């Protein structure tokens, strides 16, 4: 094989040379080239190695279906794996390497496997590496088989997402697509037409076509394309080149990937994104995606120099590149004859046309034009290393009396096994495919969405007679990318993996990055041959997103790093950051985990903050806690059902802690509810439950208790909360100033007052998550910064310290207060956390019936208990607990565990099987190293009588 650039012809600009490297060697191509056409023009015959067997491979195709030329393009952070060379447009300085080979495609160390390749049949790895365990080998095998490598550096490119609506979306900018788009635009429809190639025109760029009754070729064809594009432009239609329709979803939603600057390489203008993902909703979709040519399956069909007939023609016509000097055509249809004509027209030698059909009409005309045509003939082998030198041809039936064989010298073999309409998108839309036996192809059948196919995508009517496999010695490839041969299909049938789904998984057929574009129909037909079925009886798998591989970056768009999702900042954000707050995301909010002082580590900060609360006063930003106002004549009735405990008996001005369940009886949230008036409540939720609980309330009110007169208003973000907690909290509250008495008798625990704090309207709630006297001061966001500062000044005399989440969690663990989602999971019932009293309620609250299901009453459920360390045990969350005397499995696990400086020991909470009945029992804490021991104890380790918080 010795491809070369012709003196004229094609869309390449011979006056603009572009330098590039392939496998470390320097080459020159031209503007308008793809990497594939430039390699071909430079006479490079081996462009890659096959996936499993490391066989040398050349270009098979010229388009997206190319299975052999997989490239790693670019270097460093601008490096992309597994691009097909046929899709990579050449730019100055392009650096490409063939994947799956080392050091190069031409000389590949991995090819040492080749003497063993007859053993490497379908299922080889699974059968061979079963003992003792597949996973022992999997890593090594995958490394040996891997294709390209992703860059390990962050992607420096920018990607965009664009939403669009149109009346008609035309997929494919060839003759059929352009005609459909222009017609729709002329009717006043809003039209988008996308073309995956850089140039519109499709087949008109390299072939002669009949369009609307007129035969077009050469300059007439390009003139027609220009006219259509001008008409679309004039009508305001959107024409997108370099844009692939990758996915077709429900209700005519399609995903298009526009490669905006890929063709300019890493030095593309920075103001443009690299790719743009289009999410299009179309009234109607026209699939004008053309057809893909199928290879013929014969021994030696993967030798570099064996190409698809249309590919040979396209390289000639579009890229002015001839794949070699001496051509043999092997075909079962009329279309490949055009390749012989085009090849001869550029001065190439057409050695012979080998047609498998007995007496095709096309042969008569070709002979009249001076071509040598062998009919009833097949290619049964090829020679040449690494690239094609000769072709073995058999004329007449195998073993026939008059059958003769020929050895034809050739460096290009153009093969054509017929055409498969590109039905991928139509199938993705849910449409059925129909088998057309006379043209051996799947055509679009009945549609379920507003879509239809036009042009070759609707069916290719070229006269043909199927020829599925040619016998002979040597491997005959069906799936080039995954090295699946005709023999593998036979082995699969023999081992009874006959259904298309089994065949696919057993042989990995069609599962390579090309998703079987050139192999699917040949594989189904061959499976049909060996099992006595037609290809449609073997069946097809449904095509899926994406049509061609899509970069993860394009799917992510701008949603990376800080834009991954909206960051929610507190009104006091600036104060927290200015005062050493280490901000982390909790329930969607950026909150301080702790406030570091100079030369302090996080653990020291947490301990210092916790001690400040126990000994003096701490100040905590509790603003993100969920707040939902529930009002209406039936509000109390509703909350009696929404909580598993009673709310309606709560007096105005009082607070009550409550649990919420789902219908399965599982604890989903907790919090404190305040009764503001007879018909008005303020429901507190956890930070992460704020949105979810308000949504659930709406769902229950709208879908179940539709007659309840209740209004739900989520008001979390309209109120800021300053929490002062500790024995000196009251002193700080009084120093800043409130307009109501603050002593324990007139303002007791679990009540609230509406009034003023520091002269600002405020609601002050006495509720405690730390076990110390606490005041949660609700004020407007606009007032919180000033009040916070005044608290800091008033608290200075008492050693006031800002408290982060870590210390906050430490304090509540000392008290045995549970944290939803840490101490509970998706199976935890109220009984499991010690709330058996809810069983006494007769009200049909959410989840009520589930609480007495047999499974919920089982004695060995995981139940929440406290843990006391023995001999300095470290009670770290997640550690499992084992019976001290029984060598059984896990008895439970630690859900919360902290070192308490106040108590001078670790404090833990744990879920233990049947834990409530096991008080005092000693369990082993599994650490991976030396185990500790711990005793089951009451949940509350600090001030169990609660005297301090009621003070």
């Amino acid at each position, binding site marked *: 094989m010795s491809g070369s650039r012709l003196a004229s012809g094609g869309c390449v600009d011979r006056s603009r040379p572009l330098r590039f490297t392939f496998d470390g060697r320097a080459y020159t191509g031209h503007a308008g080239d793809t990497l594939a056409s430039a390699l071909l023009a430079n006479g490079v015959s081996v462009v890659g190695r096959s996936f499993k067997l490391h066989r040398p491979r050349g270009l098979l195709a010229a388009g997206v279906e190319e299975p052999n030329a997989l490239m790693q393009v670019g270097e460093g952070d601008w490096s992309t794996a597994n691009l097909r060379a046929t899709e990579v447009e050449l730019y100055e300085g392009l650096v490409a390497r063939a994947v799956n080979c080392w050091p190069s495609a031409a000389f590949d160390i991995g090819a040492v496997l080749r003497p063993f390749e007859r053993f490497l049949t379908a299922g080889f790895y699974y059968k061979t590496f079963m003992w003792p365990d597949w996973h022992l080998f999997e890593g090594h095998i995958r490394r040996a088989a891997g294709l390209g490598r992703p860059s390990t550096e962050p992607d420096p490119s920018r990607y965009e997402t664009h939403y669009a609506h149109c009346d008609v979306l035309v997929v494919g900018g060839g003759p059929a697509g352009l005609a459909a788009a222009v017609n729709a635009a002329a009717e006043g429809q809003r039209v988008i037409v996308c073309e995956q190639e850089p140039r519109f025109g499709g087949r008109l760029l390299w072939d002669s076509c009949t369009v609307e009754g007129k035969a077009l070729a050469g300059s007439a064809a390009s003139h027609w394309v220009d006219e259509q594009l001008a008409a679309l432009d004039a009508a305001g239609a959107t024409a997108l080149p370099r844009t692939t329709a990758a996915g077709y979803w429900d209700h005519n939603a399609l995903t298009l990937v526009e490669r905006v600057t890929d063709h300019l390489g890493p030095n593309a203008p920075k103001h443009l994104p690299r790719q743009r993902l289009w999410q299009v909703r179309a009234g109607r979709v026209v699939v004008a995606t053309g057809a893909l040519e199928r290879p013929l399956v014969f021994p030696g069909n993967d030798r570099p120099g064996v190409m698809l007939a249309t590919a040979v023609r396209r390289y000639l016509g579009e890229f002015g590149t001839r794949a070699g000097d001496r051509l043999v055509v092997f075909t079962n249809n009329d279309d490949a004859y055009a390749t012989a004509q085009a090849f001869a027209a550029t001065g190439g030698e057409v050695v012979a046309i080998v047609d498998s059909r007995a007496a095709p009409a096309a042969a008569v005309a070709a002979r009249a034009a001076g071509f040598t045509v062998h009919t009833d003939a097949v290619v049964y082998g090829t020679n040449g290393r690494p690239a094609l030198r000769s072709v073995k041809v058999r004329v007449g039936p195998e073993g026939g009396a008059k059958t003769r064989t020929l050895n034809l010298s050739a460096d290009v073999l153009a093969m054509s096994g017929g055409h498969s309409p590109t039905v991928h998108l139509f199938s993705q839309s849910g449409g059925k495919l129909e088998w057309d036996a006379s043209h051996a192809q799947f055509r679009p059948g009945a549609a379920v*969405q507003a879509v239809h196919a036009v042009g070759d995508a609707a069916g290719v009517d070229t006269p043909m007679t199927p020829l599925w496999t040619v016998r002979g010695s040597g491997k005959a490839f069906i799936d080039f990318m995954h090295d699946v041969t005709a023999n593998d299909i036979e082995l699969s049938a023999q081992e009874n993996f006959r259904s298309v789904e089994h065949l696919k998984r057993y042989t990995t057929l069609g599962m390579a990055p090309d998703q079987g574009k050139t192999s699917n129909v040949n594989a189904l037909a061959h499976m049909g041959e060996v099992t006595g079925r037609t290809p449609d009886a073997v069946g097809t798998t449904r095509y899926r997103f994406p049509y061609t591989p899509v970069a993860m970056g394009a799917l992510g768009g701008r949603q990376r790093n800080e834009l991954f999702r909206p960051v929610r900042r507190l009104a006091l954000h600036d104060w927290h950051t200015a005062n050493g707050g280490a901000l982390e995301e909790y329930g969607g909010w950026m909150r301080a985990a702790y406030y570091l002082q100079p030369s302090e580590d996080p653990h020291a900060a947490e301990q210092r903050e916790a001690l400040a609360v126990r000994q003096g006063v701490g100040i905590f930003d509790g603003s993100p806690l969920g707040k939902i106002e529930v009002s209406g004549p039936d509000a109390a009735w509703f909350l009696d059902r929404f909580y598993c405990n009673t709310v309606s008996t709560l007096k105005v001005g009082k607070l009550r802690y409550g649990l919420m369940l789902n219908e399965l009886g599982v604890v989903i949230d907790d919090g404190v509810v305040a009764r503001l008036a007879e018909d008005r409540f303020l429901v507190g939720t956890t930070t992460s439950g704020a949105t979810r609980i308000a949504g659930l309330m709406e769902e229950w009110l709208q879908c179940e208790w539709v007659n309840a007169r209740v209004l739900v208003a989520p008001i979390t973000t309209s109120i800021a909360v300053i929490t002062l907690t500790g024995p000196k909290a009251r002193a700080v509250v009084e120093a800043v100033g409130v307009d109501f008495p603050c002593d324990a008798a007139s303002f007791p625990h679990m009540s609230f007052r509406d009034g003023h704090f520091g002269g600002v309207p405020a609601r002050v709630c006495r509720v405690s998550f730390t076990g110390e006297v606490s005041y949660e001061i609700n004020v407007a966001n606009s007032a919180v910064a000033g009040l916070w500062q005044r608290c800091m000044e008033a608290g200075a005399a008492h050693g006031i310290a800002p408290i982060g989440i870590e210390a906050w969690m430490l304090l509540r663990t000392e008290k045995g207060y549970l944290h939803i989602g840490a101490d509970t999971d998706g199976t935890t019932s109220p009984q499991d956390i010690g709330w058996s009293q809810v069983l006494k309620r007769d009200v049909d609250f959410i989840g009520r019936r589930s609480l007495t*299901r047999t499974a919920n009453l089982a004695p060995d459920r995981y139940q929440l208990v406290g843990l006391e360390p023995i001999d300095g045990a470290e009670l770290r969350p997640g550690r499992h607990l084992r019976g001290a005397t029984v060598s059984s499995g896990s008895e439970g696990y630690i859900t919360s565990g902290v070192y308490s400086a106040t108590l001078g020991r670790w404090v833990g909470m744990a879920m233990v099987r049947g834990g409530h009945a096991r008080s005092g029992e000693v369990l082993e804490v599994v650490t991976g190293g030396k185990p500790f021991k711990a005793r089951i104890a009451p949940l509350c380790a600090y001030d169990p009588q609660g005297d301090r918080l009621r003070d």
Partner: protein
Amino acid sequence: MLRIPCPWCGPRDEPEFQCGGQSHMVRPEPWHEVAEATWGDYLFTRQNPKGVHLERWGHVNGCRQWFNVARNTVTHEIVAVYGMTDPVPASVAGAKP
């Protein structure tokens, strides 16, 4: 991606909605008379028709209203949209809730 006609806001894309599953579920009561198997069915047993399915959707990232949708599970065509308390429209009568 479905395009769902919210009765209040008009057609909107699926990400604005939350699917609440099968609609017209009857909550068994009073709770202390509900057999365990009946309650289990209410919690876990659902229709899975090939054809029209009656389900509820909430426009949770929009107007926050819940409504009923009759959707063909084969073609994903939405054949009817109606209020939470409305009867099943005649056009989809016979469809499984």
